[in-house]
C-alpha cells in the first residue's frame, strides 16, 4: 500500500481522527489554562514533496517542531509543528501573559514540549480508541529551525513509502491567541499496513 494511492476512506478516517484528537486536545488545554478554547474543524492534507516546505508559508521561517517516537502495536513517529508566532501565543496562553516580543527561553521550550505532549497524546489516544491498538508516545525532542529543515524529517520518513506526505492541520483559539499547528503521524513501513487494516481502510 502506497500513500500515493490512498483512497477517500482513509482521508475520512483521518479526518475523524483529527476531529476527536483535536477535540480532546482542546479540552485538555482548556483544563490546564482554565479558559475556554475554540477549535476549528481540522483539515487533512496530502502534499507532494515539492510543496512540503511551503506548508507553513515560508520554508526559511523559524518554526518549532516537537517530535515523538510512537511505540506499542505500531512503531513510528509523530511530529507537531507550530510557527513561531503560534508557539509564542501558546506560551502566553499557558502563562496568562501577552508578551508578543518574547524570545523563547528554556522554560518556554519545556512548556511547549509539555503541550506538544498533551496534544500528541490526545491524538494517539483517539487513534488507540479508533483502532483498538495499544499505543504510547516517548518523551519529546524539540527543535527550533527553518520550516523546510524541520518538515524534511517527516517528509524523509514518508519518502520511504511514496511521494507524498499526509498531515492534519489544527487550529485552536483562546481570545485573540490563535494557534495553528500541523500534526504528522508517521508509521514505519512495517507498521503502515497494520495501521491501515486497523483503521478499516484496507482488508
Amino acid at each position, binding site marked *: 500500500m*502506497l500513500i*500515493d494511492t490512498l483512497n477517500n476512506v482513509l482521508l475520512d478516517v483521518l479526518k475523524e481522527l483529527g476531529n476527536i484528537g483535536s477535540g480532546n486536545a482542546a479540552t485538555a488545554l482548556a483544563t490546564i489554562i482554565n479558559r475556554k478554547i475554540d477549535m476549528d474543524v481540522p483539515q487533512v492534507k496530502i502534499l507532494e*514533496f*515539492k*510543496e*512540503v*516546505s511551503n506548508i507553513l508559508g515560508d*520554508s*526559511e521561517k*523559524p518554526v518549532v*517542531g516537537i*517530535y515523538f*517516537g510512537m511505540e506499542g502495536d505500531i*512503531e513510528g*513517529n509523530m511530529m507537531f509543528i507550530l510557527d513561531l508566532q503560534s508557539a509564542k501565543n501558546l506560551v502566553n496562553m499557558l502563562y496568562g501573559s501577552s508578551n508578543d516580543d518574547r524570545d523563547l527561553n528554556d522554560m518556554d521550550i519545556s512548556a511547549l514540549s509539555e503541550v506538544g505532549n498533551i496534544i500528541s497524546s490526545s491524538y494517539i489516544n483517539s487513534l488507540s480508541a479508533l483502532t483498538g491498538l495499544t499505543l504510547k508516545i*516517548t518523551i519529546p*525532542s524539540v*527543535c*527550533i*529551525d*527553518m*520550516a*523546510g*529543515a*524541520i*518538515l*524534511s*524529517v517527516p*517528509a*524523509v*520518513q514518508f*519518502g*520511504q*513509502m*511514496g*511521494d507524498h506526505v499526509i498531515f492534519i492541520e489544527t487550529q485552536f483559539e483562546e481570545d485573540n491567541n490563535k494557534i495553528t499547528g500541523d500534526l504528522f503521524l508517521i508509521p*514505519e513501513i512495517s507498521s503502515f499496513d497494520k495501521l491501515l487494516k486497523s483503521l478499516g481502510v484496507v482488508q
Partner: protein
Amino acid sequence: MKVIKVGMADYKTTKSPGILVTLGLGSCVGIALYDRNTKIAGLAHIMLPSSLEIKNNSNKAKFADTAINELIKEMISLGATKRNIVAKLAGGSQMFSFSSKNDILRIGERNVQASKNGILEHKIPIISEDTGGNFGRTIELNSQDGSLLIKTIGHGIKTI
C-alpha cells in the same frame, strides 16, 4: 539574475547567469555540481541515500544515486564536460536528537555518505562541503563562479 528554486526531491540546472536555490535543507543533502569552463551549474536536493532500498523509486530526484546520474546527464546535454565538473555538498544534519533504535533519524549522515560515493563513482572531485550538525541550511549555487552560499538560523552565513 534569474533565481531558480529547487524543491525537495527535485533537481535543476542552469547556464550562467543564474542562481539555483534550495531552501531549508535538513537531513536532505544539496548536491551542487559546476562546470568551471562552461559555467553550467546543477543542484539536486536528495532525500534518501539509495533507490535500491526502496520499492517505489520512480522519482529519480529523490535518491542520491539516481539524482546524481540524472543531474550529470542534464548538465552534459546543456554542454558541460564531465571532467570539468566539480562538486560541493551541504546539508545532511540531524534535526532531532533521539535515543531511537530507528536509524531513519540518522538519515542525514547516510545521505552525505551516499552522495559522496555517487559523486566519486563519476570521478568528480568534491572540493568543499558543509554537512552534519543539527541545524537547517538554505543554499544558493551561483553559476557565474560556482560559489555556494550557505545560510542558517543561528549558525551564521558562509560561502564554500
